[in-house]
């Protein structure tokens, strides 16, 4: 069977091509390493200091990343590490508050700020001191606290105000907390403000030995002075080290011990960028797989390069490396958050894309067809790229849970089941494309069609089981937590609609209304139901009890992506139909 698809290309030529491709991929991996921003020794030391912020103790680095994102809407600013950016804000509040860092994208505000915008950005100083802007922001804030419905303009205004507010909090030294209260761990930690002022020192001396307090405060002011002079100097490094030592000495003096393991894990998680690595591995495996396909015409059969069997495994090697690092990243995030991380859009995309790969591994184990992992790698690459590319909309921050979600068992069982089903359907979406393209572009390969459609059917079955079970478990949780099994909440309704969509496709096949080609098209289209339940309810409908996951934004992109996908699908359908007329006699499909 293999030999019949072999192209008449010389063996060593293929090897050269393949090895050069391998080298190119390796080079790309190196240059796209996540440590590409300039990171100084000083900021390395400061990054590790534990701080308390928004209900969680975390390394300063995590706090800095969240803050830079919250103020500038970007992950990095000025090409510096987030830790450095934020320490510069603390050290030189008046200089940095004059810098244009707050994005003002909303048109009416661009007029309001007019000349003070630089590159579409305003400085915190200007935002906080523009009376016309602040008066209206105050009014919007009052209305918000009375739970009135806000207009788009009011929402955008509060957003900009929030950017500036976060900056002011940091620059004034009110966040983050550096020193816990030894008497009561529930109280907010004391921020740097307290160390800078004499009164704060005196108050601290109530709780800590006075000489330790003085030493810590002195090292803090020393650090600030050095940072102002030169951030990267050796003196700065020494000052940073001294501040870190004195701060932990202060905590030690009252026997406060923080879980260093979690803090180290979080540092590791921040440094590693596991999900960025995962998609690169996946993409590499897809590209290598595609390259191998150039040498063989078969879409589904086992061996990609007959003759060079030793290199056959390379795409799979990359695939499994991606799978492993993806899982490891997920594990780290679990440890840091102390819960299964599936409570916001970012986390669910990470999890769902992992589920896609997981199911493909299971199907691969059963059917031994490499096309399955290659398909899932493509889907996972796409999903992870999306997750990593829109930090403002998807919020990669690890945040505490709202009360209703604080029941780990139900949260895990219900949400993980539902999202696993999304994973199975995402795989079915990918395989559906495979079936459609296979029918359209190689209509004579009936064996391939038969195999592919069987994988598709299995993926659909897994999805249906999990979505049905997950929806029911959601009902169990809702009954337990809200007191009703089913309440037509948009999230649960859309989960049901998605399930009904797949059932309609399957029953359409049972009834003979859909051909296998039509079923594949149907399972791609039915994924729209999943998208709506997953993304649309939170970002389009934004109503109902599941409001803890709500955000906004990204709709034009999602709509464009969906339309593009449907256009490609439509193109394939047209090709398939025209070919069918041409060829006429190939056996398999019934009419769509």
């Amino acid at each position: 069977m293999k030999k019949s698809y072999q192209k008449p290309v010389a063996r060593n030529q293929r090897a050269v091509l393949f090895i050069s491709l391998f080298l190119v991929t390796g080079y790309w991996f190196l240059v796209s390493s996540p440590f590409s921003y300039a990171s100084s020794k000083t900021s390395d030391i400061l990054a590790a200091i534990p701080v308390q912020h928004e209900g969680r103790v975390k390394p300063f680095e995590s706090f800095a990343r969240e803050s830079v994102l919250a103020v500038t809407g970007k992950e990095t600013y000025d090409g510096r590490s987030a830790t450095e950016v934020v320490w510069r804000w603390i050290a030189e509040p008046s200089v940095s508050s004059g810098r244009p860092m707050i994005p003002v994208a909303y048109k009416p505000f661009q007029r309001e700020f007019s000349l003070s915008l630089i590159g579409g950005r305003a400085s915190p100083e200007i935002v906080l001191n523009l009376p016309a802007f602040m008066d209206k922001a105050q009014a919007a804030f009052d209305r918000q606290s009375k739970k009135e419905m806000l207009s788009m303009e009011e929402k955008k205004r509060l957003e900009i105000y929030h950017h500036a507010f976060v900056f002011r909090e940091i620059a004034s030294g009110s966040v983050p907390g550096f020193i816990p209260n030894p008497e009561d761990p529930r109280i907010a930690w004391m921020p740097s403000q307290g160390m800078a002022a004499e009164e704060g020192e005196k108050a601290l001396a109530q709780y800590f030995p006075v000489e330790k307090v003085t030493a810590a405060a002195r090292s803090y002011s020393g650090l600030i002075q050095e940072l102002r002079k030169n951030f990267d100097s050796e003196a700065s490094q020494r000052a940073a080290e001294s501040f870190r030592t004195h701060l932990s000495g202060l905590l030690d003096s009252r026997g406060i011990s923080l879980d260093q393991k979690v803090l180290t894990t979080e540092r590791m998680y921040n440094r590693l960028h596991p999900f960025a690595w995962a998609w690169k591995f996946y993409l590499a495996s897809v590209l290598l797989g595609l390259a191998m396909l150039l040498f063989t015409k078969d879409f589904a059969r086992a061996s990609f390069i007959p003759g060079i069997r030793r290199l056959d495994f390379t795409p799979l090697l990359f695939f499994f490396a991606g799978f492993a690092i993806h899982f490891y990243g997920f594990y780290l995030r679990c440890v840091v958050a102390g819960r299964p991380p599936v409570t916001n859009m970012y986390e669910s995309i990470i999890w769902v894309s992992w589920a896609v790969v997981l199911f493909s591994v299971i199907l691969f184990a059963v059917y031994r067809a490499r096309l399955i992992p290659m398909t899932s790698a493509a889907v996972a690459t796409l999903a992870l790229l999306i997750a990593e590319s829109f930090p403002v909309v998807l919020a990669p921050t690890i945040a505490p849970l709202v009360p209703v979600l604080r029941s780990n068992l139900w949260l895990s069982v219900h949400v993980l089941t539902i999202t696993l089903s999304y994973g199975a359907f995402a795989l079915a979406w990918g395989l559906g494309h495979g079936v459609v393209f296979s029918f359209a572009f190689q209509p004579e390969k009936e064996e391939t069609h038969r195999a592919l459609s069987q994988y598709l059917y299995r993926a659909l079955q897994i999805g249906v089981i999990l979505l049905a079970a997950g929806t029911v478990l959601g009902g169990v949780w809702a009954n337990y937590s809200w007191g009703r099994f089913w309440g037509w909440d948009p999230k649960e309704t859309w989960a049901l609609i998605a399930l009904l969509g797949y059932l309609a496709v399957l029953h359409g096949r049972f009834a003979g209304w859909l051909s296998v080609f039509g079923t594949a098209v149907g399972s791609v289209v039915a994924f729209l139901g999943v998208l709506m339940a997953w993304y649309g309810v939170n970002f389009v409908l934004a109503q109902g009890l599941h409001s803890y996951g709500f955000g906004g934004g990204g709709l034009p992109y999602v709509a464009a992506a969906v339309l593009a996908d449907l256009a490609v699908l439509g193109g394939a359908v047209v090709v398939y139909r025209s070919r069918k007329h041409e060829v006429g006699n190939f056996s398999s499909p019934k009419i769509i």
Partner: protein
Amino acid sequence: MIRQSEHFPTESACLLQNAEAAPRQRLPRRAAYAVFKFFASVKLAVIVLLTLMVVLAAGTFVESYHGTDAARILIYQSPWFALVLVILGMNLAAAALDRLPWQKKHSGFVITHLGIILILVGSLMTQRMMIDGQMVIAEGETASKIALAGAPLLYLFSEDLNRDWLFELKKEPFAWHGRRQIGKEPLPFSLHLIADYPKARMTEEIEACADGPAAIQVSLHNSFVNEKRWLIENDPALGEIQVGPAKLKFAGELLKDTPAAAPAPDTGYLEFQFEKSRINIPLAANLKLPAKFTLNGTPYQATLERLLKHAVVQGAQLMEDKASAGDPPKNPAAELTLEGDGLRERHTVFAKFPDFPTLHGMKPSAAGVRIFYRLPDSSGPMAKSHELRFVRQAPSEENPSGLVYQIKTGEQIKNGNVRLSEEVSTGWMNLTFRADRFYPHAKIKKNFTPEPGLSTSENVFPAIKVELEKDGERREVWLREAAREKIKLGAGEFHLVYGQKQIPAGFRLELKDFRIENYPGTNNPASFESDVKLKDDAHGVVKETTISMNKPLAYRGFHIYQSGYSLQEGQPETSIFSVGRDPGVPVKYLGAIIVVGGIITMFYTRRFSLHSGKLP
């Protein structure tokens, strides 16, 4: 390859087919069989599935634009939606029966269909038999009735007839205007519904009338404040209001000029915030230490031991810093002891660090108190007792309205006659006031405007407008939910209440304590919970337990959940429980388990090939 026509098999097509299959059967039987086949068809299943999808999707969009209630009334609880579900149930049952006698390959499919039918039956039971309501209980209070959601009622009591009536109303999805008679049986009056706003915003307007208390509109102005406020003489709500640092009052009597005992400089005050009350203790400059204060309304008394101006810690002791002297104080602190009710706590309070816990080496106060040391310049409401008071006196020639104002600044009182549109300086923070309007007799007129169904504003309530007619006299009145209105009609008076239907719960529930726990260092609640005591008099049961999110109390089929809370200044903490009883749940659970089991069975037993479209 398609076996049948591409169109949906009409009933006649089925008839034809079946006619061949059973030519000798009589027409009614054949028709029944045809109907059965129609319901057993997979194609009907596809159509029902697609219909459901469209309807449900529409429902979520209705909800997104008009709110949950509108979607429920228009779609999920409508009879035609129930019809679609019934067709689905018949389809499921017929499809399963059509495959009789069942073989092994059918097992998954039959089990799944049975499960879905059970879920549908469970939903029907829920719709018919469910109790779904709320109990709102303030701390220390007991409730024994459940207010049912979605069952609006109009209660009417006639004083002269000494009779009352209850009318059930329909819930409207949108704001409704029209004229609809309420009550079918003959009544001694006629009652019509004129308007029904599921969400209405109430605005109050003061207007002059023939009798009633006097009212004055005052504008207050400085660089921070710019507002107009109405004051109504001796009114419980509008007789006295707080604006910024000052109290505004329209009272019946003049402020008495109490001779100040010691016009010494103000040294601030101590503020004790208990759970339900707030006590301020002014600290005179010549106060002799230690000084004892009783904290009225609490079992405690406080002894102020030391007041420090420039507190520093030396060793482990709080001392006056000898290096600093004079004013302004660098780190004012107060040391005091709280005693009473078997408790003795020593607090150190720093004026500049109000967020610091005041107890040394201990957990938060067992008395549940927070103590603050407020300095004279901090603008607490008691920082200085500022008051602007209006009093109506007998009209005189130079003051025809008879209205005078009094400005109290600390101990000093300044009097004057009120002239409309005249700016008067209060002497506090550049604040000036101006009397804009004065009505010797005024009343509050309430206006209602409909709000969109999505509105979550705190000032929005359900409201209806009814028209009551008796003996040829006709009155219209707006009724806000849960607010009693009184109208005079002819000789008699009517009391009206628009509210939720309430049913006896069969037990009493007392809220002993409500707590919120925040995430450390934030105001974001991590959890909230209520200590409750349930008493069932009929069964002689007393249960004490804690209800929290995700931890309901189950009692005799009822599930009592913590669904929310309400914290308002000056009012006790209030817990909102949702109370429900749903006999459909076990059936639905059973159905759900069967469905999942069925699909899993199908995974193993049903060797369906997507490619050939056949079961082998």
